[in-house]
């Protein structure tokens, strides 16, 4: 009986667990606080601000995809609308000298996202799955195309700009320098992460997961899956609006690209690559994708192609995303058996690297012949120079691809085998304890 009771009502977590739980948040806050002390250059401050914004955006997206099981292709609409409202609010507040400081402007953006989501969400969330995905895409196109037609509000192709320093000042902060914007973004990021984490712990958050896993049963228990999806949709719109407003504050401009398909695609990539099954997944994905897109564009002309291929590879081979891959190893770490996997990982890494290098060499060579065929064939990609015109390069590329592929198949089959054996052993060990 006691066994049953303890399962129904989980006991209050031990002090050490609670310390660990709050410790994570405090550590996050401290990291955010100290980050600009370590990396203080203007470039890294901008990068951190962009990462923070994209973390909020990706987490808000995951309320839909990861927690409620709704695949949206148009999440940027709420982000963009939040951005536009924030810009208009800054202009209005600055012109009228109203006593609302800049740190509260993201709330206005959030309200804009919430309003739009509440307005159109009821119709959209009637269906889930594929139909919802298509409808979200259609509505996103509608809003994005309208942005180019309604020029007074959206500013046409040029967009609308604002001056964030003209607002009512608190504590003498002008929000001109990037460091102040960084702290503004960091504070909002922390608030939004905590709020969204808290949301997953509420009964509504739990019902969202239930709706994702089995809507029929939810209905049977007495909840309306449509209402649950609608509420999740509204929350996602709210947080996306906050992210959009922060982006608008950061750049001091909002244009129709904020609303467009590229923005919607990027957040989907970020959330999925990070791993939609875990709360921390979209955070990892947002950091990874933002830094990758900022860094890769310096290294190669065709970084977006690599980006797309990487996404396809994640969908094909690691549906749990980066976080999913790491979390898979938890039982092994708990049993202290991770070291058993390392040799086969190292063996598999070599041909995989060869295959990837071969593919990259091939892509860069093709790029030479199609994009700028009359330029010097001595090209440089990822900091490594090579001669795109030489048959040797082609031969190396072909050998790497064919040989790498062949060895990869064998090596990864071995990894799978070792994995099964190690996992069985680890489980046996944990059960024996």
């Amino acid at each position, binding site marked *: 009986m006691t066994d049953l009771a303890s399962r129904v009502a989980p006991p209050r977590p031990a002090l050490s667990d609670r310390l660990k739980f709050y410790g994570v948040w405090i550590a996050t806050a401290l990291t955010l606080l100290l980050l600009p002390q370590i990396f203080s250059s203007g470039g890294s401050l901008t990068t951190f601000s962009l990462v923070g914004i994209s973390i909020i955006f990706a987490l808000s997206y995951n309320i839909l*995809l990861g927690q409620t*099981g709704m*695949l949206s*292709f148009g999440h940027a609409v709420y982000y963009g609308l939040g951005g536009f409202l924030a810009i208009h609010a800054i202009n209005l507040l600055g012109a009228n000298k109203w006593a609302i400081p800049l740190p509260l402007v993201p709330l206005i953006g959030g309200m804009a996202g919430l309003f739009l989501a509440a307005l159109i969400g009821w*119709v*959209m969330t*009637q*269906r*889930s*799955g*594929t*139909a919802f*995905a*298509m*409808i979200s*895409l*259609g*509505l996103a*196109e*509608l809003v994005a*195309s*309208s942005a180019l*037609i*309604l*020029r*007074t*509000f959206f500013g046409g192709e040029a967009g609308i700009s604002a001056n964030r320093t003209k607002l009512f000042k608190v504590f003498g902060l002008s929000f001109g320098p990037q460091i102040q914007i960084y702290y503004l973004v960091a504070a909002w990021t922390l608030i939004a992460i905590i709020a969204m984490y808290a949301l997953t712990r509420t009964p509504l958050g739990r019902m969202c997961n239930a709706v994702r896993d089995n809507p029929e049963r939810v209905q049977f228990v007495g909840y309306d899956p449509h209402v649950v999806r609608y509420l999740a949709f509204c929350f996602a719109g709210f947080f996306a609006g906050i992210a959009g407003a922060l982006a608008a504050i950061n750049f001091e401009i909002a244009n129709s690209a904020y609303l467009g*398909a590229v923005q919607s*695609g990027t957040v*989907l990539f970020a959330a*999925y690559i990070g791993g939609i099954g875990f709360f921390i997944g979209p955070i990892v994905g947002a950091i990874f994708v933002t830094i990758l897109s900022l860094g890769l564009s310096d290294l190669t002309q*065709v970084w*977006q*192609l690599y*980006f*797309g*291929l990487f*996404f*396809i590879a994640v*969908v*094909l081979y690691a*549906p749990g995303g980066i976080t999913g891959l790491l979390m898979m190893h938890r039982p092994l770490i708990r049993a202290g058996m991770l070291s058993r996997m390392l040799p086969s990982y190292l063996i598999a890494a070599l041909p995989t690297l060869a295959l990837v290098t071969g593919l990259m060499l091939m892509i860069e060579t*093709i*790029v030479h012949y*199609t*994009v700028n065929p009359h330029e010097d064939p001595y090209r440089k990609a990822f900091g490594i120079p090579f001669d795109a015109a030489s048959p040797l390069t082609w031969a190396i590329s072909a050998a790497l691809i064919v040989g790498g592929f062949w060895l990869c198949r064998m090596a990864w089959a071995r990894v799978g085998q070792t994995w099964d054996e190690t996992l069985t052993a680890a489980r046996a060990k944990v059960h024996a304890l």
Partner: protein
Amino acid sequence: MLELVVISTLNGVLYGMLLFLMASGLTVIFSMLGVLNFAHASFYMLGAFFGFQISRWFGFWPALIFAPLLAGAIGAAVERFGLRRVHRNGHVAELLFTFGLAFAIEEIVSIIWGKVPVDFRPPALLDFPAFTIFSTNYPAYKMFMLAISIVIFIGLLLVLKRTRIGLIVQAALTHPHMVGHLGHNVERIFMLVFGVGTALAAVAGVIAGPSLVTQSNMAAMLGPILFVVVVVGGLGSLPGAFIASLLIGLVQTFAVSVNGSLASVFGPLGPDLAQSWLSDIWNVTIAQIAPIMPYLLLVLILIFRPMGLLGTRET
């Protein structure tokens, strides 16, 4: 006025038939595999670019045959090595896979052929005005496009309704497990259907390429409209897709030729509205909102008939 109606109807039907060429492949694929192929418009784009390249080397007529075959083969390979693999992870993973594929195809095409439109011209044989209505020359190539679309439409209907293949495909639409139990290789049927569906999209690409613009964003322009067609017609309904294609084709072409706006109709009633920020809505002409007409139609359909025009399936 009559001139406008006749020309717009012709163009609308033409555009609608092109949409249907693509939507038919998409619908058949969706009905059988249960996944809406996000990259379907990308195969249309591949068809156009393959057609352009082959017609440059060997002429237009070989291109009309080989470009769809090539695109169809790529489509079949995508099903065999990609979709089949992600199938066990559910529909969302399949949709995401095709989404990533659409993104990658657009990047590859813009790397190989560049971002600016390529010079894809109609064949010399068809480069003359077919007839003249109300002093407007109507190009023969457009009639050819219409003829091909109708031929494929009738051919598809015949194959689906009259042949043994069609019987199996239709049975697999509703009872895939039963078809499997009867000894048909459902996996291979899926692969072939996917290949044929993408080849149909590529046919649309080859014949539309010379008439519309062939460039690397043509898939991104048309893809969303394609999904509007499928949702408006009713998910999985081929006749629904046909009606929705024609409807959208006609609505869009007629809208382009109408120059009216709210201001021109109600202008005398609310002159002060023209001054506020509502002036955009007030002054925008119907021709200007033609590109968003399909999406407005989508919203209306969602509100008044969520299952689509001829749809029966609630998903």
